[in-house]
């Protein structure tokens, strides 16, 4: 029995984007992403807009049906496209007696029972709450779907309990979303996710739309709830300082690929990949003296389109270390120290 709660193997998510037959084009939103999340841990995903972090989170919950890959939750396979080989403990491909790789059985389970355990908090608290439902009904909807309350009284009590848990009170239950501020709405969104007693929550940029002074309130609340209810989070954000604050481990994505994964301390202070390095140096430091003295690595150019990503390493068009090898072949995903993975041809040269 492993203590891994969620495991993702070779996840692909391609969206069709016009064209017919041979010319059919795809947006390669998520491209061969593998990671796992332990029970009770917070796993952070960072990257620029369009790098596929939100898509990864949603595909993980099967809000989008994956193009390819395997998703395992609590040792149960939720989805398997049937063409993804199993890996051994050391990361090599597991082979059967005949020497051929072992594939999983093609599976796609009914998600309803799992929706109770896996929930999501969306980015925009203005768009993710139905304006015509009261807050009580928004939180109560999930309770109804999963038949968690035997009678109206129990349902009401549960709604109030959830609202109180996120710092709202019973009086708020009869109000509509437009009567709330951004921070309060995000609390409603969190209460809705908590209403079914989940084990795992995908937090999709839950604080990006909020003011600085409110962000800290919500971040602290996530931490408190995790302690009280033993939750596991996948925390998606583009702000590395927030992700570093809340996460145990962090994965960095660039153009659909996971390019580095490490313990959050290790990642911030000993990152290996050139993209992570520039990302960290680009974050404005709220300290005038350090800001004046630090040398920024300013990347040239823009992120290429995921419709037609560069060959080989996807970062090579902006990478100061790029050469022919980077254009020719995609770098391998390898472990550079315990639990610290990166995908780059020139790790020796970069560091």
């Amino acid at each position, binding site marked *: 029995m492993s203590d891994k709660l969620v495991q993702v193997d070779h996840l692909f998510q391609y969206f069709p984007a016009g064209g017919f037959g041979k010319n059919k084009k795809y947006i390669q939103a998520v491209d061969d992403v593998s990671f796992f999340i332990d029970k009770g841990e917070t796993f952070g995903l960072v990257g620029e807009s369009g790098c596929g972090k939100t898509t990864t989170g949603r595909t993980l919950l099967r809000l989008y049906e994956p193009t390819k890959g395997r998703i395992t939750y609590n040792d149960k396979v939720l989805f398997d496209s049937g063409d993804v080989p199993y890996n051994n403990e050391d990361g090599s491909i597991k082979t059967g007696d005949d020497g051929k790789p072992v594939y999983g059985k093609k599976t796609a389970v009914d998600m309803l029972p799992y929706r109770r355990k896996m929930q999501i908090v969306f980015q925009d608290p203005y768009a993710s709450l139905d304006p015509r439902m009261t807050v009580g009904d928004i939180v109560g909807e999930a309770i109804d779907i999963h038949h968690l309350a035997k009678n109206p009284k129990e349902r009401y009590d549960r709604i109030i309990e959830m609202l109180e848990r996120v710092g709202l009170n019973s009086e708020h239950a009869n109000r509509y979303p437009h009567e709330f501020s951004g921070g309060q709405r995000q609390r409603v969104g969190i209460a809705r996710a908590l209403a079914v007693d989940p084990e795992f929550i995908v937090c999709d940029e839950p604080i990006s739309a909020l*003011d600085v002074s409110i962000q800290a*309130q919500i971040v602290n609340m996530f*931490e408190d709830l995790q302690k009280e209810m033993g939750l596991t989070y996948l925390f998606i954000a583009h702000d590395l300082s927030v992700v570093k604050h809340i996460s145990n481990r962090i994965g960095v994505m660039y153009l659909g690929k996971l390019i580095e994964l490490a313990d959050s301390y290790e990642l911030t202070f000993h990152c290996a990949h050139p993209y992570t390095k520039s990302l960290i140096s680009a974050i404005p430091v709220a300290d005038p003296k350090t800001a004046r003295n630090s040398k920024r690595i300013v990347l040239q150019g823009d992120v290429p389109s995921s419709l037609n990503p560069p060959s080989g390493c996807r970062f090579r068009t902006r990478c100061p270390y790029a050469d022919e090898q980077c254009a020719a072949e995609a770098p391998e995903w390898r472990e550079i120290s315990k639990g610290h993975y990166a995908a780059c041809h020139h790790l020796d040269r970069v560091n």
Partner: protein
Amino acid sequence: MSDYLVKIEHERLSFFTPVGEVKALNDVSLHVSAGEVLGIVGESGSGKSVTSYSLMGLTAYPGRIVGGDLWFNEHHINAMTEKQMQKMRGNEVAIIFQDPMTSLNPVYTVGNQIREVILLHTNKTKEEADARAEELLKLVGINEPKKRLKQYPHELSGGMRQRVMIAIALACEPKLLIADEPTTALDVTIQAQIIELMIDLKNKLGMAIIMITHDLGVVAGMCDRIAVMYAGKIVETGTTDEIFYSPKHEYTKGLLKSIPRLTDKGHERLVPIEGTPVDLLNPPAGCPFASRCDNCMKICLREMPPAVEFSETHAAQCWLNQKEQMEGENA
């Protein structure tokens, strides 16, 4: 007159909405010298954009300046006609908006939009204006400027569009550039590019910049002085170092404590500012921050604190400072 480029004295501005008067600005005074970078920090609705828009005469209906004086480069803004205003706008003072996606006109080419400003404010011919537009694109670091001039905004990325916005703003070499959250809609790596560009251009052209943002990290790196706004008031102003290393207002202190820092080695809990921002429709009688302040006293709820000066550049409006000062004198 003083030697300040911008001088705002006791400005009060209200929006007369159907539900009542929203006092967006309440006694705001600030100044900017030539070539200086002033950062205005505050949360949404604190009045930072409204302040700078009113300086350009861009207050949207139903808003109106109800008191105070605004001076820009010897112009008395309150007394200017729309015609005089048009001459000044884009010429002596220019603005970059937050969202480069919506602030460029989608049906005109980039070149057309840059040329428009040049033709409006100078006597240049079309050909000369085109040459100048090309020069400007080169200045803001856009490759192949000739090709870009013929492109439409949707063909450019977010960072490029913001560069085009900056090119338009700089077309007439303004004395003051107002940057209203110029990097909020951009990714971190692109944000770093734009900030670098702005500092570079400021050094080259010697203009003053008013940088409006809610990101303390952005102001720390590029501003000379900072004004912290809360609920339509400037609660604290000072040099960047004074604000970051010896903040005097409780709101500034709270703001600095509430942001996670990448350089923290351990895991310290964030200290949030509890509560929510005030409703400007019915502002409280005393200090607007009183309801969220940990050290709130009785007087805070009754009366607005006066500004206390700590140095020539540093001032804050908080009763706690008054109290400390009095205790200091008595001791």
